[in-house]
């Protein structure tokens, strides 16, 4: 087992061979200590991903075949849809993100993982919380607040699970070696602290001491945007900041740019959310403040994008070989696209047409799938071999996974935006009947179902491949699995 060996790196010179050997043993020990908790989080996440995919397919098909399974109360569209969203948000994305964050934390704090039992209990409770929550939604106990549909008893379990994870993270940070806090650690520490504050504050304001009337809706949107940016966004960006430099073996282009990017991100992204309430029964200044924050969030997007781009410069050829790099770079580019689309649809003149349409679904999928999920896939391709001591078995399966995901999410985004434009234009024309204004939508929704089939293939292929790794059926080799046969000369030329 040779975990941290990066074959694409320059060969070491004679003098630093011993130092590198020590570092490699140290890393192997750290990786070994994270094995159980991280694999537990990953395996749970992938099971939720499969379930969420099936629920998504049902949601999508029911939109153009409304009588499908509609007589069964727990499979009615209005329950399957929130079940899908919550499984993806809390089951898949959060658990995958925590798994990756644990591993990155351990590596960057350069210390072996202490108290793995804490994390394993955390993962078990988290699974229980999601299971109770989804069961509650399907049984008809949804709270009715979007992204917060879990009934309160599930929320309590999730919160216990989360406290276990965060107390572990703080212990870990406390025992870190070295003074330097790497960029990824800023983002991870931010995510670990922002999530409980935002989640806790929201739960208190909605259920313990409920706010009056429309303020509940403001809290819901404040929560879901902060969850998207300060939890998923922070973990995703932190991961990209680790993976891209690591795989290509160069330092991040600019440390100062990264610092500017982080603080402007925290400052502006946390103020977004109310733009989704545009022209609703709220004071106009709330919406305007969030629109302004969304526009200003171009600053962190540009700095992060520039930083990644300059780090990758002259190394884009490696996308041909490394699965991790390919997924991560796709995610990083999607982050830029997602943010720019976010700016566009928040403008009042555009929102007039796209508000209340499928475009908002396209936007959430750009953020949660094209950006976050793809970055998570990338990190799993990097981390899992280091945990199980085997390399991924089939390069072909990785390729199938990548292309079905890419085409799937691309097609879905296009279809939903097209549906949103068609619907939005017609809805603004009051002389048209409502039913006529939705005339063109089912066509695009069928296209979306097709993209769902692609994504289903992608996820089952990935789950199968991951299962092989868990069973120890990966390749025993000293080099990672490349997407294409490595051509030595070509890589030398790159370096």
């Amino acid at each position, binding site marked *: 087992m040779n975990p941290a060996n990066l074959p694409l790196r320059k060969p070491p010179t004679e003098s630093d061979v011993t130092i590198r050997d020590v570092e490699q043993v140290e890393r192997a020990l750290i990786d070994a200590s994270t094995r159980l908790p991280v694999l537990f989080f990953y395996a749970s996440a992938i099971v939720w991903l499969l379930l969420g995919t099936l629920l998504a397919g049902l949601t999508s098909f029911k939109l153009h075949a409304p009588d499908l399974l509609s007589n069964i109360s727990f499979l009615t569209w*209005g*329950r399957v849809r929130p079940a899908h969203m919550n499984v993806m948000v809390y089951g898949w994305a959060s658990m995958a993100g925590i798994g990756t964050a644990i591993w990155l934390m351990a590596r960057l704090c350069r210390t072996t993982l202490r108290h793995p039992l804490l994390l394993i209990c955390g993962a078990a409770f988290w699974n229980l919380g999601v299971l109770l929550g989804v069961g509650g939604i399907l049984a008809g106990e*949804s709270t*009715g607040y979007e992204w917060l549909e879990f009934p309160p008893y599930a929320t309590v379990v999730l919160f216990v699970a989360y406290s276990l994870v965060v107390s572990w993270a703080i212990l870990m940070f406390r025992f870190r070696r070295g003074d*330097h806090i790497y960029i990824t650690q800023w983002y991870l520490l931010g995510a670990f602290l922002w999530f409980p504050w935002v989640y806790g*504050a929201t739960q208190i304001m909605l259920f313990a001491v409920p706010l009056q009337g*429309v303020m509940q809706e403001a809290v819901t949107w404040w929560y879901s945007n902060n969850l998207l940016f300060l939890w998923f966004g922070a973990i995703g960006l932190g991961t990209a900041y680790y993976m891209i430099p690591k795989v290509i073996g160069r330092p991040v282009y600019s440390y100062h740019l990264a610092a500017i990017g982080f603080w402007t991100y925290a400052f502006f992204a946390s*103020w977004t959310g109310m733009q989704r309430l545009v022209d609703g029964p709220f004071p*106009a200044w709330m919406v305007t403040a969030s629109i302004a924050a969304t526009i200003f969030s171009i600053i962190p997007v540009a700095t992060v994008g520039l930083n990644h781009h300059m780090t990758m410069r002259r190394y884009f050829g490696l996308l041909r070989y490394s699965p991790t790099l390919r997924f991560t770079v796709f995610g990083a580019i999607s982050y830029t696209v997602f943010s720019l689309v976010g700016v566009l649809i928040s403008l009042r003149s555009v929102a007039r047409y796209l508000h209340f*349409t499928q475009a908002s679904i396209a936007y959430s999928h750009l953020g949660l799938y094209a950006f976050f999920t793809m970055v998570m896939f990338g990190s799993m391709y990097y981390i899992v071999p280091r945990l199980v001591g085997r390399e991924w078995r089939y390069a072909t399966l990785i390729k199938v996974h990548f292309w079905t995901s890419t085409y799937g999410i691309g097609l879905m985004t296009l279809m939903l935006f097209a549906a949103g434009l068609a619907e939005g234009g017609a809805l603004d024309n009051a002389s048209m009947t409502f039913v006529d204004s939705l005339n063109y939508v089912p066509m695009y929704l069928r296209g979306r179902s097709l993209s769902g089939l692609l994504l289903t293939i992608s996820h089952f292929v990935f789950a199968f491949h991951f299962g092989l790794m868990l069973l120890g059926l990966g390749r025993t080799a000293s080099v990672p699995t490349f997407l294409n046969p490595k051509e030595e000369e070509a890589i030398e030329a790159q370096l």
Partner: protein
Amino acid sequence: MKGIAPLLLGIFATFAFSWVGLILIPNYQIGHLEPQVDEEGNDPYPAPKSGMANRGRQIYAANGCVYCHSQQVRGDYAASDLERARDQGPSPKPKWGERRSAPRDYLFERPVLLGKMRLGPDLANIGKSAPVEQEAAAGGSPVPSGSPSPAPASAGSPAPGGSPANPAAATAASGSPSPPAGTAASPSGSPVPTGNAAVTGAQPQSNGLPPQYSAAWHHRHLYSPRSFVLESNMPAYRFLYEKRRIGGERAADALQLGPADGVQEGWEVVPSYDARCLVAYLMSLDQSHALQELKATGAAPAPAKAGGSPAPAPKEAK
């Protein structure tokens, strides 16, 4: 970056700043509203909903109606919601709304179901769209046990019911069907029909179908959406209804179904309690009552004084 203190402090500061700015200050501005009353302190609006309607809201939330139906009408400066009429109904067809929605409309809503998607029409005023006779029948009938009447019962007050009292609202209401008369029996100005009373009290249309947006119509629409609108992609909510063999006499609250609904002779479909609650909730959705903050020049939707940045003015103020 060296040192953990600035990092933690910054992380906390960004969270706190956004919470104060987007939650605490707006809550100070619109989070402590009271029902509006007229000069004599009568005619409070909004009034708390009946017990059945409140339970209906939970059914609405639990079955995800909010993912396709919004409950907010945007101002005419922002969208064409106010010009839009419903697809069905007697001519002139009922409008989506006669004024835009304001925070005060949602005082007693929990959860608030504003919605973010319109795969179905807006429901902010769906109860208001019910036919006039329907309301009179429902409002005049004694409230059955099990559905308590609204709490602030200023019964006996000369409340003008649903008819707009001030000229500004009247101009906004121009072109809409004539305001319902005879609703004075309901203290809130919004009648509180219940599933039961409405089914029996409705006058059927000439073609035998229940009048559009009446309670009987809602029940049939929930049971069999495509019997009214062929292109509708609303799922049927048959699990809220009980299909049973007619024993002796047909039940009074059985749905008025057609041959296309797949119910054989000798069978009837009756709404469950949940279904009746859901319909009672739908029938209670009515934002037609005039609001002081929406009638004058450039008023913000909140009772904010001139200090705050006002929302764009409604059209009639220009």
